[in-house]
């Protein structure tokens, strides 16, 4: 175990030697990796932020359950009992047609017309507030309630949220495709970088093999080199996003104020940041692994 740790320590040391040995190209490649990673990460981050907008609209959605005008008090009690049994409903309120008419007469410009009506045209209504449910669950609930007797309509406005959700889903797919493409580009970039490093260290590799170095021993410093480059690239991408978000939020603040909302972009939470780091490290490692393995296979006769 100690020997294993010692060899990994030595490999990490060699990896840093490679980084420091060619500082200009190391910095350049880390900057390129940072920019490459920040593109898909930035798109995904924006989409996640927009998703919270559509999500918020679905977090406490409302249904208006309109009863038939001929519904009796027994029917209302039955509907009341049924709604109480539904776990998806956070709370609800019954608004009788009389109260609804009163409110309409008091509050709207139609007050005069409403007062002159011979008969109350309004139905009894249940204003239902739902818990945290998906769009599909709202639709299912709507269908269920609509099937109950004496229910005329169930009004719910989830259409715009559904559309936004669909657009965001499409955007997410595009972002993931871009992430795959940029990820592949990153692997190729590391592959080429490692190939150049191997060329400069080919003598050392050859001598090491002749004195009994295993392929793992030879591969190890390059894998660490690739992983360190990936890590540094991811940290830079995170920083680029942080600066960009701060700048965008300044502009968004004014816009949000005009719409009387408090919308702003949030950076990745720690778990998403960790995922970004792990993916970048993994891509750097993969590029290095492919590059060294290719070299070792080609020079297998040593």
């Amino acid at each position, binding site marked *: 175990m100690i020997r294993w740790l010692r060899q990994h320590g030595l490999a990490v040391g060699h990896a840093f030697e490679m980084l420091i040995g060619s500082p200009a190209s190391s910095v350049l490649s880390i900057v390129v990796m940072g920019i490459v990673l920040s593109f898909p990460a930035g798109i995904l981050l924006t989409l996640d932020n927009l998703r919270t907008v559509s999500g918020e609209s679905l977090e406490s959605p409302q249904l208006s359950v309109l009863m038939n005008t001929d519904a009796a008090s027994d029917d209302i009690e039955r509907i009341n009992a049924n709604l109480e049994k539904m776990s998806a409903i956070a709370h609800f309120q019954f608004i009788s047609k009389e109260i609804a008419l009163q409110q309409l007469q008091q509050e709207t410009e139609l007050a005069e017309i409403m007062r002159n009506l011979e008969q109350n045209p309004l139905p009894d209504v249940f204003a239902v507030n739902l818990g945290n449910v998906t769009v599909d669950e709202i639709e299912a609930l709507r269908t269920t309630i609509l099937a109950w007797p004496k229910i005329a309509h169930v009004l719910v406005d989830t259409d715009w949220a559904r559309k936004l959700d669909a657009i965001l889903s499409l955007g997410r797919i595009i972002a993931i495709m871009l992430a795959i493409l940029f990820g592949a580009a990153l692997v190729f970039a590391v592959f080429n970088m490692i190939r150049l490093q191997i060329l400069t260290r080919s003598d050392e590799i050859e001598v090491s093999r002749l004195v*009994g170095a*295993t392929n793992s021993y030879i591969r190890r410093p390059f894998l660490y080199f690739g992983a360190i480059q990936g890590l540094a690239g991811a940290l830079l991408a995170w920083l680029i996003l942080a600066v960009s978000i701060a700048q965008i939020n300044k502009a968004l603040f004014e816009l949000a104020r005009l719409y009387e909302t408090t919308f702003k972009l949030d950076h990745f939470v720690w778990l998403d940041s960790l995922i970004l780091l792990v993916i970048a490290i993994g891509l750097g490692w993969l590029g290095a692994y492919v590059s060294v393995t290719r070299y070792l296979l080609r020079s297998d006769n040593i």
Partner: protein
Amino acid sequence: MIQFVQVSKVYSGGFQALQGVSFSIMAGELVFFIGHSGAGKSTLLKLIAAIEQPTSGTVKVGKLDSSTMKRSAVPYLRRGLGLIFQEQKILYDRPVLDNVLLPLQVVGMESKVATARARAALDKVGLLHRGKANPVSLSGGEKQRMCIARAVVNRPTVLIADEPTANLDAAYAQEIMGVFRSFHQVGVTVLIATHDLALIENKSRVLQLYQGKLAQ
């Protein structure tokens, strides 16, 4: 210890380097492989170190058999061998001591122990005082002695040298041979390929190669 059974080697270009070569070497022997250039001396040594694979026949080194040995076993075979090459294969980006340390780093030896061992190996070949020097500053004989130190630092049971005195004058050549003799005297099997007949001692075993075949 080392056994060749009907070993032939044909390179990809069609050149036949060895043809039906058979012999055995016991532990602790000092063996010279002689022959003209292209006779197959280097190929034979490369086969022992698994740098090349035989086209036919079997090469056995200790318990390892070339016909059944996996590629992953080759590094472990080489850790038991000390290899000295005609072209020296020196790393000029690091000092002499670090060149000698390399085989010990490869096996993961602790830094202090490895440094002590490398210094002892340099002392054995009379180069301890040049440990911090860059190999560029060494003379031809010193470079070869450094290569010997690198080859023996891992305490191998077999020392293999391909034309170790090829680029050296007579005085340096005798100096290098003295180093080989000292290792042979402590029980190390020493195999030397050379075309310099002046190096061969009367009591030594000599295997002569001629056009890829072992001459009787």
